[in-house]
């Protein structure tokens, strides 16, 4: 369920998205929902040999943000004020799927949420965030 003339097709991905292996699977610009695949790799492992918590937070962040971006066709971008992450299961390198959506928004503030799943559909982690809404900066 792509969007015709998607913002994400028209703009280069930032470094953080490339690092995470960000891949847009679907977007619903009307309801502010996105589905994104990520590919965490061996450089992101903790001493336990699983993906370090920050990279899990990063994938959730890079799912929530695009949910707002698709809703506004890239005119607005969230500046995160806080983020709360729950870690349900260890994440291992490979393909994981993020589902993110805009729960609520005002003119200045967005409440975002995201969930991360493995290929079998097991819930691995979830996050909520409160963000200030900024105008999208000029992208080179």
């Amino acid at each position, binding site marked *: 369920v792509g969007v015709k003339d998607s913002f994400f097709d028209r703009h280069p991905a*930032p*470094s*953080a998205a*490339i*690092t995470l292996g960000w891949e847009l699977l679907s977007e619903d610009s009307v309801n502010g929902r996105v589905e994104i695949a990520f590919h965490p790799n*061996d*450089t*992101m*492992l*903790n*001493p*336990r*040999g699983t*993906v*370090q*918590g*920050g*990279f*899990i*937070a*990063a*994938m*959730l*962040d*890079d799912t929530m*943000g695009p949910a707002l971006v698709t809703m506004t066709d890239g005119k607005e*971008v969230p*500046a*995160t*004020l*806080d*983020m*709360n*992450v*729950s*870690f349900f299961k260890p994440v291992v390198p490979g393909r994981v799927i993020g589902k993110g959506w805009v729960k609520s928004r005002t003119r200045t503030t967005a409440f975002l949420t995201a969930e991360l799943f493995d290929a079998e559909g097991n819930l691995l982690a979830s996050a909520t*965030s409160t963000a200030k809404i*900024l105008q*999208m*900066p000029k*992208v080179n």
Partner: protein
Amino acid sequence: MSKLPSPSSALMQSKPISYEDGIATIEFIAPESFKSLRGVVQGGLIGGFMDEIMGNAVLGESEGKLLPLNLDMNMSYIKPVPMGRLIGKGKVVKIGRNVAFIEAELFDPEGKLLVRSSTTAMLTEVP
């Protein structure tokens, strides 16, 4: 055999400086690969630093025996985090037999507070 330092800490160029009076201090270099659309470190990836700081606080408090397995992590983003050198400070608020409550702060090289975090974690032995 211990896997410390881990691949993720190498990626962030983590350099533990000290563990004194219950405070773990650690330096990082935020790599260019962590950059967001806004030209600063992506918010979730900031969690990478916070996680590393809090892990070091538990390592220090347990004399190198234990590591936290995070159940949750809460972050407050006070200022954007620039690319380059950063300083983290973390402490264990309370350590039980199975669970620890840990806090961390991230500063720029001038000592300005950028991010605060807290976490609830299970304690596991260092692998």
